[in-house]
């Protein structure tokens, strides 16, 4: 068993692509707490199931070190899990579905909540940038009121390379912050 574990949190609104993000890079099948969405709910129209507690992925670095990726539930009624999942995180990724402006307000609200939990570095991943209706990252930065100093990265959560690029940028930010302090 590894002697050190490091944790990163992947958060964002409902259906932003958090589970796909972790699945694309995790070396194990993602341990997910997805449940079927009740009939006649708004969410049912978007997807069949949703994360209710967390998603869990793992990347083993060596015998001593393991990185855990925790995905938060996107629906507000499960937000009691957020604080639990945020505890001890090295940094976090806020996923935003670039094609769904109706979720931007919630994305901003989640981002602010996680910033308030801990002053750890974070990046914003603009998912589905390959889709025709996607807002570009410059517009998203203004829409979400993200400061220039925060990285806002184009992302495709189903692509391993794209997910790698997001995680690397987060790690570079963490490293920069360590070097500054």
């Amino acid at each position, binding site marked *: 068993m590894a002697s050190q574990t490091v944790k990163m949190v992947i958060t964002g609104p409902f259906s932003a692509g958090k589970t796909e993000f972790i699945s694309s890079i995790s070396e194990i099948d993602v341990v997910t707490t997805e449940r079927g969405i009740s009939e006649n709910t708004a969410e049912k129209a978007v997807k069949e199931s949703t994360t209710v507690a967390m998603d869990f992925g793992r990347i083993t*670095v060596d015998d001593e070190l393991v990185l855990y990726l925790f995905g938060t539930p996107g629906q507000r009624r499960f937000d009691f899990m957020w604080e639990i999942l945020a505890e001890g995180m090295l940094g976090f990724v806020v996923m935003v579905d670039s094609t769904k402006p*109706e979720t931007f307000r919630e994305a901003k609200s989640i981002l602010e909540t996680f910033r308030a939990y801990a002053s750890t570095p974070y990046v914003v991943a603009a998912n589905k940038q390959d889709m025709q209706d996607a807002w570009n990252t410059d517009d998203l930065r203004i829409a979400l009121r993200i400061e220039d100093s925060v990285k806002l990265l184009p992302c495709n959560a189903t692509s391993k390379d794209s997910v790698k690029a997001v995680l690397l940028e987060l790690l570079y930010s963490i490293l920069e912050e360590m070097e500054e302090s």
Partner: protein
Amino acid sequence: MPLKGNLRDFSTTQLLNLINLAGKTGTLFIFEGIRTGEKDAIGGDKMKPGAERARVAFKSGKLIAAQMGGEGNDLVSVLNKAGKLTDNQAKLIRDRAKNQGDKALAMRLISANYISQKEIVSSVQQHTLDVVYNLLSWHEGPFTFEDNILPDGDRILVPIDLENVIIEGARRIKEIEELNEHLPDLDYALKFPENPREKFKGIHLSVEEWRVVSFVNPKNTIRQIAKANNMSEIEIRRIVYGLEQAGLVELVRPGGKSGPPVPPGKTPPKSIPKPQVQKTVVNKLIDRIRQL
């Protein structure tokens, strides 16, 4: 890629703010919403665009033209509406100047001493502003922003700074919920953005707005500013909303600490301590992820 959405999720004020900050050139189209029977990601009724309700053109982040769908938008209509031409004069000019563009017509009217250039410019400007102020009160409807689409070359375009339009729009907001949602906590403070002098150039603020601006300091909460100026909550919310949307002030935690306001309906979460991790660990993680 056009910018698409619904005013229900991204308001006209927010759109103007985005267009202003991004220095965009193009045209914003707002449509009647036709319900598709489907739901969007947050449970709202999905809408597809129906008839065009309005279009607003921008050049390098400045408002240059606006028109309501189905409303007369040619120069004669604009001057008639502004009271610069009577109905009879408007009819006469229309009959005589068929197929003549706005610019050529303006030259003829000025040469004939019907009207001055200044009156034409102010009438066109007022027409544009009237349209935009009207649509600031719309709370629903699909929109599309098409880059680089501009009115035809014959239209008279008068560039207008959007900051003033955004502030005026905030003055006209009647819905208290909208202001409460944007600014849930009056115990936050305000600070100026970088280069405040540049941002305040050419801005027309009311006496009350200047009074608020004079108290902007990360040490003063919005509540304290309201009290010092003897303003009600709704008054201070409206002013702060306008100033913030126009990019003239930013919200900060009291005492100048960086960090965002707590979202609506949330109590401030407890701060979680950072994990103690060495740089070597982060470097190992970087190396590993690169290899994946």
